[in-house]
């Protein structure tokens, strides 16, 4: 199972102490296959706590690059029916998205099917599908602007909004480095932003933008101190991403440069 094998990888890297290794092998040899004893334990069991602590310390030291290179397994083209299966799936993926759209758009969610499997009918059927798509789903400049405008907005959010660090699993191709992950916890900022945004649609924008920006700046600073979070938003892009919604308040950048 996916998660299991990923976990296995992370747990194998802990047995770095040679003494510990011999210990585990000796216990393995005593319990032969004939006398299987299930090891059901509780998390807070003192012995388990000790083992976890040992593993944790072991994990902190870096394995050699060779060790991790040996962990990178060569993959063979077998999944999804090999290259031909993959090609078929690629075509199918395109077809299903367009087909679903057109069925929902013109046929009330029922399947559009050919009258029969005779070549002439099939030809008519595919020509009809193509014409429907040409009529209803031909790409427009406006659609490109919407889709990529959305993407750019999301990229700005991704890069600029603040977060805290957590860890992923060690990646063999990166020499077992844990991948740091930033998670945003700034609900206070959000509530400010939300309140401001709602207000913006009723009141003059600038009158609210400046005081809110000041408040947000201070709130961010104080909260980061209070929670001992390293504030990761000394960022030239931040004022712009907020200005997307707050209509330009350059003073923000000052408060975020704490």
């Amino acid at each position: 199972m996916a998660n299991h094998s990923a976990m296995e990888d992370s747990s194998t890297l802990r047995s770095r102490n040679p003494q510990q290794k011999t210990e585990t092998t000796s216990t393995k040899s005593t319990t032969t296959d004939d006398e299987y004893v299930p090891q059901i334990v509780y998390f807070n069991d003192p012995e388990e706590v000790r083992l976890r602590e040992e593993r944790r310390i072991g994990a902190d030291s870096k394995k050699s690059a060779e060790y991790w290179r040996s962990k990178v397994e060569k993959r063979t083209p077998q999944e999804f029916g090999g290259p031909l299966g993959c090609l078929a799936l690629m075509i199918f993926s395109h077809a299903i998205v367009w087909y679903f759209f057109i069925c929902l758009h013109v046929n009330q969610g029922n399947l559009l099917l050919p009258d029969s499997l005779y070549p002439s009918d099939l030809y008519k059927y595919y020509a009809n599908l193509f014409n429907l798509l040409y009529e209803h789903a031909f790409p427009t400049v406006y659609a490109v602007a919407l889709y990529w405008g959305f993407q750019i907005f999301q990229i700005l959010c991704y890069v600029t909004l603040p977060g805290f660090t957590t860890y992923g699993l060690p990646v063999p191709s990166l020499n077992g480095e844990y991948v740091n992950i930033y998670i945003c916890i700034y609900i206070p900022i959000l509530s400010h932003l939300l309140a401001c945004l709602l207000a913006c649609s009723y009141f003059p924008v600038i009158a609210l933008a400046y005081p809110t920006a000041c408040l947000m700046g201070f709130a961010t600073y104080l909260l980061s101190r209070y929670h001992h979070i390293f504030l990761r938003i000394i960022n030239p892009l931040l004022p712009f991403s907020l200005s997307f919604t707050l209509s330009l308040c350059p003073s923000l950048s000052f408060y975020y440069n704490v």
Partner: protein
Amino acid sequence: MSRKLTYNCNALTTWYVTLASLVVLHYTGIFPYGTVLDHLGPITTVAVLSADFVAIAIYAYAHLAGEAEDDNTGNVIYDFFMGAWLNPRIKFYKDYVLDIKMYCEVRISWIMLFIIITSAAYKFYEEHGYLSNNFILLLAGQFLYCQAIMKGEDKIPQTWDIYHEKYGFLLCFWNLAGVPLVYSAQALYLSKADPSTIDLPNWLVYTLLVVLFIAYYAWDTAMSQKSAFRLMYNSKYQPRPYAFPQLPGSVIENPKYLKTKAGTPLLLSGHWGKLRKANYITDMTMALIWTIAAGYFTAFIPSFYFLFFTGMLVHRNARDDSKCRVKYGRDWDEYCKQVPYVLIPGVY
């Protein structure tokens, strides 16, 4: 070669900022909410072609810049489909990095999906002057689902997709086009269908809402229990205090587990002590409720998600079982004895 990667996963903030921005754009008249649905056809084509473009660009760049992983097979079609690069990322400035995989997987798919379905709901409201029972049920279900993904973002890097799957056509296409356009089928169907023929009675909607919340609760806590346990076992657990909703029972204080020879412990407490696949039945229940909301199987396409999903889970269960039997050996037999049921307690 030692590289240290930093993920910037602020999905929850992005989620609220995006929703708030859309509200403002709607009320200021810059971008009325129904616009998305009016242009859905062109958007579909643009999304499909963009997904192709991004997949090709990443594949080409990985090879040109020497970022392709060592474990690639060498078969161009297969590598393009499965991906050539494990962690594609764009570095803007110092450590302001865009991790394309996390970004597409969490943001584009689910936020775009939610925009499309709420846009469909808005269109319906504009046309009929009210929001039907079916729509309320569907929106409640899909909102909870999207919200849960944003909330659980810090658990996503430990999943197979991020840890092992390289970023190829498969992930790229379904993230950038497949998920938002195929999963929105129920809402699109409802926005076009005649509400008088498929409307659910009030009592049924209230019942289903209760079932939905129970299923959601069980699903959320099951997933949370498992990933919290995995992180705690590896001494990597960090609580996530502010994310909504905080459900009681999502972390087991002193879980019981079976230590295995293969190394990975098997959890025996909480929901996972009752069912081997505790998340499947709840996920299926939610999918079923979405389908009931979308015309209870009167049309094929809105029902497709549930049928496909159920089939996939049943198949995956069989595959997992045979894999685990090989991997864990006797430990797996013991685990099956401890947790005898897979999908439904007392039945199977």
